[in-house]
């Protein structure tokens, strides 16, 4: 019984691993498409999606050559449904704000994003990344990050309750291309403006992950996208609901599949 439970539990993880089968090859993001009928019907996308199909598509070599050139490409999550959701990944120069209640598995999406950024799976270029956390007593567990595909040599962790003032130099420099601020409380409005400006000027992707849900009433206009990521009670899915910048919701199968609830397919 226990092994069956574990198999269910890890089903999301295994689908996640499909990205690793293409180790050494750049991950090619799915092209931006209008939402399909199945998505409109609320079908749930498996993490990893159709990466293998995409890698074997005839257009791959063409895309690869485009990536190998020095032009800036979007950075993908490595989860095809999510990359489609963002019209082919996140472009450099973006400030993204996410409301992710801490502890429900939503930050795994951000760790996945770090994996594609540091390992060069997206676009073939390896980027330096910075994860800033304001949490006391709780620290990152690097082996789990590495197991997701993160290249730990290109990732730095910092602990700061005032990230904008204490790590200003990191935002004002081109070195770290992806910066994630894991902050329980919201930042000040002028800090969001500063971050958006840094992202634009220094061609970075900055993500602010907050514990509480975002609301349109917050009126944070500095962020290009604002999303809520949450796990509905007793459901094995992660639901991504846009607050700003996008117009449709997305449901992903959660990496954690509780055996007492319906298994997401």
């Amino acid at each position, binding site marked *: 019984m*226990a092994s069956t*439970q*574990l198999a269910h*539990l*890890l089903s999301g*993880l295994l689908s996640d*691993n499909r990205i690793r089968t293409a180790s050494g090859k750049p991950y090619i993001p799915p092209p931006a498409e209008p939402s399909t009928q199945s998505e409109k019907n609320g079908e749930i996308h498996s993490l990893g999606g159709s990466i293998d199909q995409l890698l074997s598509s005839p257009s791959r070599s063409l895309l690869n050559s485009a990536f190998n050139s020095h032009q800036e490409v979007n950075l993908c999550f490595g989860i095809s449904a999510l990359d489609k959701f963002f019209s082919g990944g996140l472009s450099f120069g973006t400030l993204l704000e996410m409301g992710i*209640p*801490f*502890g*429900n*598995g*939503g*930050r*795994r999406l951000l*760790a996945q994003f770090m994996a594609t950024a540091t390992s060069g799976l997206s676009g073939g270029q390896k980027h*330096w990344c*910075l994860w800033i956390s304001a*949490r006391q*007593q*709780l*620290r*990152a*567990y*690097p*082996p*789990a*990050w*590495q*197991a*997701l595909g993160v290249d*730990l*040599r290109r*990732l*730095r*962790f*910092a*602990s*700061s309750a005032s990230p904008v*003032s*204490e*790590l*200003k*130099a*990191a935002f004002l*420099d081109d*070195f*770290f291309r992806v910066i994630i601020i894991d902050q329980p409380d919201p930042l000040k409005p002028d800090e969001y403006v500063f971050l958006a400006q840094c992202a634009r000027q220094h061609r970075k992707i900055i993500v602010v992950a907050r514990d509480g849900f975002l609301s349109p009433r917050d009126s944070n206009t500095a962020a290009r996208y604002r999303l809520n990521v949450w*796990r509905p*009670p007793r459901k094995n899915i992660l639901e991504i609901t846009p607050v700003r910048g996008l117009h449709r919701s997305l449901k992903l199968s959660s990496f*954690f599949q*509780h*055996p*007492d609830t319906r298994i997401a397919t």
Partner: protein
Amino acid sequence: MQHSFLPFTSALSGASSPSRFIAIYTDAPDGGQFLSITPKIMRWTDNICLLDLSPVFHYWSHLAEQYDVSFVEYLSSILLSISAKVVTKDVVTKDANRTPCFVFATHPWQALLLLSVAMERPTLNFIEAQSHLGRRMIHDITWPQWIKRCHELREHVSSEAEAEGGKRSGSKKKRASRGLSDVKTSGTLSMLTKTIARMHLTLITQMSDIAPAAMHRRFGKLAATAWAWTWSKSATSMDQQPYQQPYQQPYQQPLIREELSDDLFLSDFPWQNVVPEESPSIARHIETPLRQWDQIESLLCEDFDKICTLACWTSSERVVSLEWVLSFSCSPPLPIPVLFRHPHALHRESGHHKTALLQAFHSWQKATKQHLSPEVLGDTYIADDTITDWTLTIKERLVISPILRSIFSDDLATESSELLRIENSVAVPLIGYAMTDHWCPEKSFVPASEECPSEAGDDPAKFATHQRRPLFLYDQPTAIPNKEQSSGLIFCERVSTTWWSNEHNKSTGSSRDYYIRMTSDGLLQWVFQNDEGHLALHGLFG
């Protein structure tokens, strides 16, 4: 720069983390070229130097990472290239076959003792006290070697006490190190020598079951303190504790310092830095409010430029720490230490001093917060925050040897140098991690700077295990009350703990069964059940 790394004549295996101190046999007059390695050098005897790597540990470990070698290996190769010239004089006059000898240890006393042993073995040029070999060698120390070092220690304590007495006559302030200042009256080392001779003892291990307290009763505080240093945890193997009752070790020192103040566990050790003849310093008379950084910044930038023009500060030197002392008309002076994580080339940023100003800003912010806090000002609040003058002094610096110029070259704008520059500009450290071979979750990673050469993390089985583990771990597991323990646990794995180790926390038992637990509010927790059936929260899936 291409380096040829040392062909080690001793093993590194078994060393759990890099050591902070190095003892070197040399006859350079003033710390010589070792000032290229660290600003904290002590001359122990005419021929022995002690190096404290804490101010520059990050820098050297970062460079070692670039060459994909361990910190100790890299630094040894650098030391060897420097010492080739330094030791030459000694080679000619004393021992033509003697190779340079370095001992790395977590405490300077252990480094000194092991150096005594190493000097008698010409095949050894390098010893890491925490390695298997180092831990074995500490058992080869003879009583004459140990007592000789104690006599040297007594001389240093006496000379330091005299110097401190001269400086602070009339001052009530005393350092904790004065605990050893009774050594003159103790006069018990001769008694120890007689006892050893009467008992026909040769090796110090023959008395290893004597506790420091017993040593104190019979032979005085100095001998007891040195005895405790000798048998510190890192110097003994896990299964060979020298005496039954572990004692409080005051020298569990941090490898990386956070403050410029007199530190830490060295409070009892008579550390005396080799001080350069002249410290570059600039004084300024002003009238500026403490709170107005904008005004301070431009003046400070001018002062950095002025320092660069001083004859005693050349472009081949690197600043490691500055002391910026602000004076007020009514309040006492406010010293602000400005520490750099990596040696900084001040001349390189002439005109703007972006890095130095950012670091000064972070230190200023911290200091002013404390200075202007109601607790410090008390009830008699006087808005005296007008700076009347300040002094800017370079406290610690590296004097780069011509042999090492290429290492400190500013010409190469590599990723590595970019990272060093950013780390020097931010207020909090940026930490990278590396994997270890340990199976316990909390011990399966270390900061990248402390990575040991024997450790690697490419085991596929471990990789699969780590995929099922959470992204975040609590510093300490927290017990979950019985009433909250639900039955909805999903088994993940069983982990054996290091129950045989002295560091082992008994509350975690000899093995742990890990589960994923989903709380009623949807939290995904990583919990374990110990041998006694108690649940503890260890991680969160984020």
